[in-house]
């Protein structure tokens, strides 16, 4: 029996919708799991991809703080093939809207000025990640495969993964591209 393909995934600044679309392959998940092993993902308890690496790394979301940047770099380093899944990872998506008003203005609105906030302050504990300008994934690390869509259709995700598992290069065209 050929060894199973190892897969890790994580989410950065996004909405989890891309991972939901991954789960939307429904019962085909069981088929996929016959050929692929899920290591670290948001729905498993392994916290990081192993130092020995994985075959396929998948990232959802843009990079908008120091924690995301660290996760993206680690995933790149430990993946043979890195997939940018969804518009946020591919282009920056909705999270890049935060770049237009100044970050400081966004923080002030959320934590001080909103009508329901009393005695607000901007959170600044050293335990918290440091905010950065929002960037698409490939401005931070090299990306091998771009899968656009918000989220990409479940069929596209399934096609992509089954092709990779079979050792083929996926051709993402036609119905696999969702430009909503």
């Amino acid at each position, binding site marked *: 029996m050929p060894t199973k393909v190892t897969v890790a995934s994580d989410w950065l600044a*996004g909405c*989890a*919708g891309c991972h939901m679309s991954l789960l939307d392959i429904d019962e085909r998940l069981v088929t996929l799991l016959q050929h692929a092993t899920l290591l670290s993902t948001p729905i498993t*308890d392994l*916290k990081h991809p192993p*130092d020995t690496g994985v075959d396929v790394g998948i990232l959802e979301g843009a990079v908008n703080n120091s924690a995301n940047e660290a996760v993206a770099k680690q995933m790149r380093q430990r993946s043979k093939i890195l997939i940018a899944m969804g518009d946020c990872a591919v282009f920056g998506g909705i999270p890049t809207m*935060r770049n237009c008003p100044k970050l400081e203005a966004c923080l002030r609105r959320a934590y001080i000025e909103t009508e329901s906030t009393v005695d607000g302050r901007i959170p600044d504990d050293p335990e918290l990640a440091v905010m950065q300008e929002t960037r698409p994934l490939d401005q931070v690390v090299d990306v091998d495969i771009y899968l656009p869509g918000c989220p990409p259709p479940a069929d596209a995700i399934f096609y992509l993964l089954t092709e990779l598992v079979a050792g083929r290069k996926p051709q993402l065209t036609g119905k696999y591209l969702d430009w909503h």
Partner: protein
Amino acid sequence: MGRMITIEPVTRIEGHAKVTIHLDDAGNVEKARFHVNEFRGFEKFCEGRLFYEMPQITERICGICPVSHHLVSVKACDEILGVEVPRTAKLLRELMHMGQTIQSHSMHFFELAGPDLLLGFDADPAIRNVVGVIQADAQLALKAVTLRKFGQEIISRLGERRVHPIFAVPGGVNKALPAADRDAILSQIATMIAYVQDGLAVMKAWMEKHQQEVETFAAFPTAYLGMVGKDNSLQLYDGQMRLVDAHRKEIDRFDGRKYLDYIAEHVESWSYLKFPYYKKLGWPNGVYRVGPLARLNAADRIDTPLAQKEFEIFRQVRGGKVLDGSLYYHYARLIEDLYCVERTQQLLEHPEILSMQIHTAGRVTNRQGVGVIEAPRGTLWHQYWVDEHGQLEKVNLLVATGNNNYAMSRAVEEVAKAYVKGPEVSEGALNRVEAAIRAYDPCLSCSTHALGRMPIDLAVYDPAGKQVNRKRRGQ
């Protein structure tokens, strides 16, 4: 010499967060904090957009409950138009909301929390996940996948897509329901009811076996907030807000659109997630919980027969006394799941569900609008202020998970105190700390209008900030 343990990130929840556990000289837990580590800024960057774009933009706050944001947003937009939404449009919106709640609750029980319950808190982290559940009980896992799919398909039949649908518009919805879709959904109801009941049976058997743990695990008094009908029945789409105290005595009842008179938010320097509380009691006396358990504690009845039966059993678990243990959230979530499947049937059998009267046109009439809804994780508010052309001047969002921020922090502390002794901590103990958070099914994308998640990386620091011990799990 005090020390600190860090858990980062926490897994099987939606969002980026970490936990720090602070130990005193004797190695006992002094305090624990639940830090939410993300900020996306929707309140600010939406300014200047047109109000009717919000049902599409705010879906992107959360891919797990996009429908909640979609619908609450459109409710706020309805108020800006000042029109009466046709009854059929309301029914169809509620139908979509049921689909959303079924998929979210089912996924949480079986795929996120399920591994702890079915495989055990101390199971090997390498298998303690949905794949492990499939291996342990393939049939049950398949039922879970089917239930989630059922919910997602209700959403996509109405709004073309499963995630980020396009359906509700200010004044109504953009598509009537074809009879074929109604019949296709109706034909699955009996099976789905049976599947949820199987889940409930699993949960009840688990509670029986772990009575002590269920009773004491992160149990603490708070008030509870939930939406109810006039007769105090559980409501998820529309109703009044009811706040009850730790003994289920009514403290207040209000129109959710007037939330600013009742609810305020507190900020701590160590979390990007704010802490809402009931204004009249102040911070922190006015803390309350939301979500499935809070809703069932705040309601007196459920309007569908099977869920009502389960509700009566739920009420009798402690002889009519309030259930305040965090693990009861899982139980309450399944009873709500059952209600949602039954309610789906009620909605589809409504004589006007196929009507073409689904939209009332209007123009910007009011300069401000509030929407409120019960999202799967609790009460969700959107408020928009617009200029005369409908361009957004200000936006305020108060999200479900935020309302449980106090409860999650408290749950973490309770569990840390019960299970963590000294810096040498077992993986199972740490998983229990995470499980305390997981009970609330937090959606941190939502709550900070952001997104993230949490595996565990534990580090122990001495007071000088030097790392003295480090343990990563799941590597």
